[in-house]
């Protein structure tokens, strides 16, 4: 069996799902962010897989895309953590199931 | 008739000018303060209430314009007159063109006059309102503009615009100045109308898209063959909106609530002209634009009409609230409009149009009278009243007169309309008309019984303090309404000729398609 595109894609899909599940089910806001990071990594993996198995221009644009995604992910995490900090200062908690002042 | 002057636009927007004036000029509140400070002598005589005088002036101005138009209306030429038009939205690429087009023909002219007239009545009957008069009269005038707009629009979009515009003043007028469960009623009124408008808009748009124009004068049913909706569906959609407005059973229950809780002037205008928008729409839009479907739907319309007449009348009899009783009677009376329309002939349709006009006057007067009585007794419950005629005989005269007009007494306007409808519709809708005759009897029953319970009977001391009609505004309203009702009752030609002119083209269209259909099939 040759390890082909599909293998990586399946891997990416599984990772995406695990990340999604984490994002959906963790109590802690940081935990949710971890899940998001996994999802983004899954996307990156998928893109790099396309880069390896696609045409030249695809290869380039996907890798550039991944660079951007990584950068944005970092920025998002930074802002997310800052917001979590603010929430913590206000509420003494960053559990998403307790930050439910706004609902209904 | 082209007076070389946008008289129709002036007519429609004059009330808005009044709104502007009312908004800009000080209301009573400031004026009194000013007077008290600067001219102490005046303060005792009561301050001038600017808004109502402006409203009266403007509505009278509108009435005069309408009257002049009515007089110079060329009765020898059919079609639209006083037409004002220019392109308003022309988005050629997307095919969305709306024309600012207004005009009146024989059908709309009397209704325009009726609107202008009843607005004056509405202003006068509100003469003693002292709650936020500025806003009140402003909204009343907005209401006039919107209704006039509906009756004169020659473009579906403008028709719809004015149709919806009327909701705003109505909502506020009922819920601020109303009584009883007014918030509920106001909201119910709005929601019912909007519900109907939902379908109406869909129908309009389907028509407009298929015909590539929203101009009522240019849309013909042939063009609707290409519509995305089948013509009967469009017809039914639009009919829903008009049925709610008219209203017909079973879409009528907003009406008693709205009428009952509305202030008198609004009840008058609501019953007098707003309901007419439904009947007018049926004639102007449904039957003009879709004669073929209309011709097929005649029996259904007749049956709906008869159900409204008889069922409405039966339910009316059980009402215990005087205003509610009259409101229900409107349901019954407006059923005649559908019955007349379903005749598909000039006679029946003229009768239906006539019913619009006469019912506007008669029910308007009934509501005026009930309103004036309510102003005095502060109850509308029939059970609470008794022997009122002893203390307020003049109002009693007005009430009895209006009631008799309402039950279709000859020499008063209602009779002409009803008899014309009957005579016109019997040939084509024999069974429905036969049943509808019952409505005449039931109308007599509920009106006379209500009169008996409220105005007649022994004196009741608790009403001994009631003042009778005593203000010039009240005499003016009652007198003018009586005069018009009698005038139309004994000399209906003055309006009937116009209406006949208005419906003739419609009937020709119907006859053309019917004979074509008969020839083809």
């Amino acid at each position, binding site marked *: 069996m040759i390890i082909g595109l599909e293998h990586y*894609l399946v891997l990416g899909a599984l990772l995406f799902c695990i990340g*999604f599940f984490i*994002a959906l089910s963790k109590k802690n806001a940081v935990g*949710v962010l971890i899940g*998001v990071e996994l*999802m*983004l990594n899954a*996307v990156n993996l*998928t*893109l790099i*897989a396309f880069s390896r198995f696609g*045409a030249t221009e*695809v290869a380039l*644009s996907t890798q550039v*895309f991944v660079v*951007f*995604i990584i950068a944005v992910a970092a920025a*998002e995490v930074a*802002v*997310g953590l800052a*917001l979590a900090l*603010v*929430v913590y*200062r*206000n*509420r003494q908690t960053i559990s998403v199931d307790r*930050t439910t002042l*706004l609902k209904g | 008739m082209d007076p070389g002057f946008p008289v129709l636009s002036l007519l429609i927007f004059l009330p808005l000018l009044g709104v502007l004036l009312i908004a800009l000029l000080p209301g009573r509140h400031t004026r009194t303060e000013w007077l008290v400070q600067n001219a102490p002598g005046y303060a005792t005589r009561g301050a001038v209430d600017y808004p109502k005088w402006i409203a009266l002036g403007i509505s009278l101005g509108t009435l005069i314009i309408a009257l002049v138009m009515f007089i110079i209306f060329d009765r020898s030429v059919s079609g639209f007159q006083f037409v004002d038009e220019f*392109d*308003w*939205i*022309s*988005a050629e690429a*997307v095919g*969305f063109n709306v024309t600012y087009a207004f005009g009146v023909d024989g059908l709309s002219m009397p209704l325009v006059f009726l609107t202008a007239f009843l607005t004056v009545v509405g202003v006068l009957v509100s003469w003693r309102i002292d709650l936020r008069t500025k*806003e009140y009269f402003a909204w009343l005038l907005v209401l006039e503009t919107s209704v006039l707009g509906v009756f004169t629009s020659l473009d579906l979009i403008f028709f*719809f*615009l*004015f149709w*919806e*515009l009327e*909701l*705003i003043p109505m909502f506020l007028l009922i*819920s601020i100045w109303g009584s009883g469960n007014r*918030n509920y009623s106001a909201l119910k009124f*709005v*929601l019912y109308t*909007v*519900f109907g*408008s*939902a*379908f109406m*808009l*869909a129908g309009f*748009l*389907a028509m407009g*898209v298929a015909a590539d124009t929203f101009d009522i004068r240019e849309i013909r049913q042939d063009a609707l063959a290409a519509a*995305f*909706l089948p013509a009967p569906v469009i017809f039914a*959609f639009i009919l829903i909106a008009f049925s709610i407005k008219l209203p017909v059973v079973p879409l009528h229950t907003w009406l008693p609530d709205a009428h009952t809780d509305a202030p008198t002037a609004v009840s008058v205008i609501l019953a007098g002209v707003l309901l007419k928008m439904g009947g007018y729409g049926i004639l102007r839009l449904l039957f003009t634009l879709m004669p073929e479907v209309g011709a097929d739907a005649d029996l259904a319309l007749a049956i709906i009409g008869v159900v409204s007449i008889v069922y409405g009348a039966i339910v009316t009899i059980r009402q215990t609230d005087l205003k509610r009783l009259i409101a229900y009677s409107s349901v019954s009376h407006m059923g005649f409009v559908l019955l007349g329309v379903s005749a598909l002939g000039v006679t029946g349709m003229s009768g239906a149009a006539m019913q619009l006009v006469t019912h506007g006057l008669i029910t308007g007067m009934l509501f005026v009278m009930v309103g004036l009585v309510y102003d005095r007794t502060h109850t509308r419950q029939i059970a609470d009243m008794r022997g009122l005629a002893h203390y307020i005989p003049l109002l009693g005269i007005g009430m009895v007169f209006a009631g008799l007009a309402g039950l279709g007494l000859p020499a008063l306007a209602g009779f002409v309309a009803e008899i014309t409808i009957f005579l016109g519709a019997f040939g084509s809708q024999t069974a429905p008309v036969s049943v509808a005759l019952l409505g005449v009897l039931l109308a007599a029953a509920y009106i006379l019984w209500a009169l008996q319970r409220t105005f007649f009977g022994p004196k009741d001391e608790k009403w001994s303090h009631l003042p009778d009609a005593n203000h010039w505004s009240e005499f003016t309203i009652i007198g003018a309404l009586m005069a018009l009702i009698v005038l139309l009752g004994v000399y209906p030609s003055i309006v009937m000729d116009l209406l006949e002119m208005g419906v003739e083209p419609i009937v020709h269209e119907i006859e053309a398609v019917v004979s074509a259909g008969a020839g083809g099939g």
Partner: protein
Amino acid sequence: MLSDVNLLGPELVLLVVGGFLLIADLFIKDRRLLMGATLAALLGSILYSAILLTEGHVGSQGFGGVLVVDKFAIFFQILLASAAMAAVLVSTETLQRTPSRRGEYLALILFSTAGLQLLAGSRDLIMIFIALELTSISQYILVGFYKDRWGSEGGLKYLLTGAVASAVLLYGMAILLGLTGSTNLSEIANYIAWQGDGREEALMLAAVFLIAGFGFKAAVAPFQMWAPDAYTGAPTPIAAYLSVASKAAAFAILIRVFFEALGDDLLAEHWKTIFAVLATISMFVGNFFAIRQNNIKRMLAYSSVAQAGTLMIGLAAISADRGELLGASGILFYLAGYTVTNLAAFTVIILIANQNGGSYDIRQYAGLGKKSPWLALVLAFALISLIGLPPTAVFFGKIYLFETAVQSGLAWLAVIGTVNTLISAAYYLRPVKAMFIDPAEDEDDESPMPRPSNSVLATMGLVTAGVLVIGLHPGLLINAAEAAVAAIFS
């Protein structure tokens, strides 16, 4: 290259001034100066857009096809910058509440606006992603800008959901990229035209993920859940901004992606169904949730979900045979009308909140019609416009959109839309009722209201005039929208 920079002008102005503000913040504390600079930047951006329009740059692509300046983009640039201007103008109170972060606040608004503008002009997936993230991250911060219990919570929720939505969007983009091998929209379109069997599911998955990502920004149900929380928690000018600008840009990019890149006729049938269903869901969800809201910001948040649903009708219509121009221009027109209307509503809400201690409880609006008749009147007018009653902007927007629906054979959607108008009337009229009909709790309270700032009053006047002008003479705007969409569909 220089000409490319020229094409970037409107955004560049914002970015540069934004950067400048970040620095200037350290030295300048005067609110007016900072606001003035921001407004100047936005005005400059609008002017630049206008210059681009008149100077014959229309249709030019820049930066290797990443960015395009067509009338469509310019329409949105002007719309977004105007919305941002309004948001800045009504931010005086917000700036007073956060004296030490004024520069950041204004700069982030500018960055966010630039991001949205870029979004409207993007023709490349990477560009779309970056622009979207620029605006998103700025907005996350802005939502939590007060750093109070509600703002931080709203911001965190917005960020966490937004991050997931971004990931989902990216996954969709990745699949699209894998399928078509390009990030450029026109090249994608070329590849789409050639599509083999067995790829449809993948394409659809990508499309659904894209819809989820963009729909999140537009607050379309079922991707709308962040909106009420974010709007409620955010400073009110930001809520206003989110409700109009984000939505506008999201629809711009939806139109671009789905009808420039994925506009294949075979696919369009699918989009039609999807958008129609989403429209229906959004309208019902938004309206049903809005009915029972007592916080007016939250009510407007839900209403904006419903409005997004109404806009979706246009998207559904574009996919139909004859609906392209009509549907797209309908969306643009509606967006413009909705923008001014919603801004008018929010402006008044801000004014009212400033007067009654920062509260947004509808029940506390009782008696306002007497105390501040003009505010009440404008709010009522805006709400009436939001219902879609004449003579207002949204009235024509609705007619226009419903016409597109009917023309596309989606008459049922028009009916659903108008029935939803009916439901929406029930809650839009609540504040009206409260203001004009309900008696005030403290009837005798004759204490004078705090005088609102001139900029807010001016904004109120401007947007209200906008609502009225569009309502009375919609022709101009319709023609503009028509010209704008001709850039994409022609």
